[in-house]
């Protein structure tokens, strides 16, 4: 027990140190690097939140753009009447409510339906928003003018990412996380031991959706002008999935190690090949699928195993585990 505890403390200390270090970025650079940092943090938060749900349940959700857009619109619509902090809460609640509705309709069924429905969800909401705006508001774009600088947004997103990590860690330790692991291993077994599988999934989906909604809300001031096409851009959903899968969803920190190489790679491609970005992105993707079958986490774990094996020849990982257990 003690060993585990110490391990966690080390991880927590590392995490805190990393957050502290990262929060210094805006003091170092205010231009492009900060802008890149905001993007990194945005996707770090969204992908980790996505993996909270899709990791253990293995259901690919393509609804991120819907939550993101709901968050953005919460800010755009309420900016005149509520303070920004309250709007973040509104964004979280409305995204969670949406996730609850969708989850209740589709999560009881098999996975494919969920995937397709989530894919269409963003489009559907975008159309309804566009339609109601044209019907009732008679204009499409909404201005979001705030005094928030890029620096503030970066810190907010960093805080959000940390929060997602803490929540993810808490879930893993809780009954909910335990139930999820059983569901992920075998849903039939889970049902037989009395786990309300659908409800568990719906709750998790709501938590994940709420975080993505907040990420959208924080991005709103950056857009300055909100219209449905930008807020519900389906590319957001795709990118979130790809990044998370690239990183690997079996670990909480998996998506994080996907974000960094992905955003930097995309950055490199867009700046180096502005006219061929589609082709290069396509090829890069195929390369990732074939060369990194288990994501970056898989790669890192294999590397670690190799290093460990070289460092301690003769001590196999199983014996190490046994030693650990005896010590505990």
């Amino acid at each position, binding site marked *: 027990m003690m060993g585990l505890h110490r391990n966690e403390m080390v991880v927590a200390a590392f995490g805190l140190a990393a957050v502290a270090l990262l929060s210094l970025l805006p003091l170092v650079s205010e231009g492009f690097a900060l*802008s890149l940092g905001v993007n990194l943090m945005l996707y770090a938060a969204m992908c980790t939140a996505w993996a909270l749900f899709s990791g253990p349940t293995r259901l690919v959700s393509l609804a991120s753009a819907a939550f993101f857009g709901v968050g953005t619109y919460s800010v755009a619509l309420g900016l005149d009447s509520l303070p920004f902090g309250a709007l973040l809460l509104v964004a979280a609640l409305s995204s969670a409510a949406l996730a609850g509705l969708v989850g209740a309709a589709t999560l009881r069924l098999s996975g494919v339906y969920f995937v397709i429905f989530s894919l269409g969800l963003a489009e559907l909401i975008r159309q309804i928003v566009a339609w109601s705006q044209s019907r009732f508001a*008679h*204009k499409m774009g909404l201005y979001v003018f705030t005094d928030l600088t890029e620096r503030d947004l970066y810190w907010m997103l960093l805080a959000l990412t940390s929060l997602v990590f803490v929540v993810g860690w808490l879930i893993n330790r809780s009954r909910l996380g335990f139930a999820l692991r059983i569901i992920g291993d075998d849903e039939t077994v889970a049902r037989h031991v009395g786990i309300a599988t659908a409800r568990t999934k719906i709750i998790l989906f709501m938590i994940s959706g709420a975080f993505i909604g907040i990420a959208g809300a924080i991005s709103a001031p950056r857009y300055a002008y909100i219209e449905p096409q*930008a807020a519900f851009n389906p590319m957001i959903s795709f990118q979130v999935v790809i990044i998370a899968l690239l990183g690997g969803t079996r670990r909480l920190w998996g998506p994080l190690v996907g974000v960094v190489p992905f955003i930097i790679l995309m950055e490199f491609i867009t700046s180096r090949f502005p006219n061929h970005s589609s082709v290069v992105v396509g090829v890069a993707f195929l390369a990732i699928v074939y060369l990194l079958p288990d994501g970056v986490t898989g790669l890192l774990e294999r590397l670690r195993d190799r290093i460990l094996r070289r460092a301690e020849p003769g001590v196999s990982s199983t014996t190490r585990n046994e030693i650990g257990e005896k010590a505990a």
Partner: protein
Amino acid sequence: MLRRTFNSLMVSVALFSLGAGAAIAEETLKVGVSASKTGPLTAGATAVYWPNMQLWVHDVNQKGGIKVGEKLLKVELVEYDDKSGPEEAVKNIQRLATVDKVDFIVAPYTTGINLAAAPLIARYGYPQLIATGNANELETFVKRWPNSFWLLGKASDMSTGVVGTLKTLRDKGQIGNKVALAHVGEAFGLEMIQSAKPAFKTAGFDIVYETSYPIGTQDLAPIISGAKAAKADAFVAFSYPPDTFALTEQAQIQGLNVDAFYVGVGGALSGYAKRFAKQAEGVLAMGGINPADRAYKDYRERHKQVTGQEPDYWASPVVYASLQILQQAIEKVGSKDRAAVTKAISSGTFDTVIGKVSFNNNMLGRVWTVGQWNNGVLQGVNGLGVDGANAPIKKPAWN
């Protein structure tokens, strides 16, 4: 110290990634462009935006460059793709300003992205000459960002333009009083309809059918049947290119023989006349030009020669004119000083392919609003401060 090392690191990365390390020896005028090369906005950008960048750089560099003070500087274009989204656009502007450190930035493509990029472009002090966007509340916008210039007029100018043309036709007794309205459910369509409806009412028109449809819809048969059932005399659609084509084809198929048929964006493309040939005759569309104008004729020829593609009859020449204005303002000031150039733009008069133009409260006072297809050319029939407008005619039946 840390900051400087970091920035120089970023710059060297950028230089490396631009592959421009060797060519940097000569001083150039660096101009940054960020617009859509992929995503849903690509089609429009390839038609009216990118070819003009190519043409302008070609034209300027062929003459040796832009005269900045004593020096003649060649233009070096730094291009990025905004993937049809504001997020990427904002990042690109950031990169152009801080990594590439370009001397000037060409305004992006479409209203939405221009609005999203405006705060950032303003923060870095670049003039923003918006040639592919319009909105209604331009006065407030200009007050907030005095470095933004609008070349296509207000949305309401466009919509009241078509109302004016229909009124002319009606007062001549060529069309009746009943109008059918359709618009794409997107920023552009809404801005238009918002000002068009009251204008139609004040002009005494009777709106017998009105509808909106989602962007990207090409199955528009129900709209044409609706207009037909309402027995409209005039059909007005604030549409986007794919639906502009689909509506025109459906109207022919269902035999919607109105006396005035108006379409929005895309109706000014050369491809429209090619696709519908004789059927296009008499169709009204957003935009228009004065075909007799020498400057436009020359421009059209060069555009075809250099880019291998024909310009449209509305935004293409305006995009080119925006680049000419920038160029002439820089030459007038004689330096790369952005604030001075911005000031020169707002106060000067410029000789461009759309004629001699100047800004009034940062808005161009010379805008074509409605054109009518006539022998394969979209002849302007209505506009603000333009000359050479023809009188509109009643549309012949589809044949």
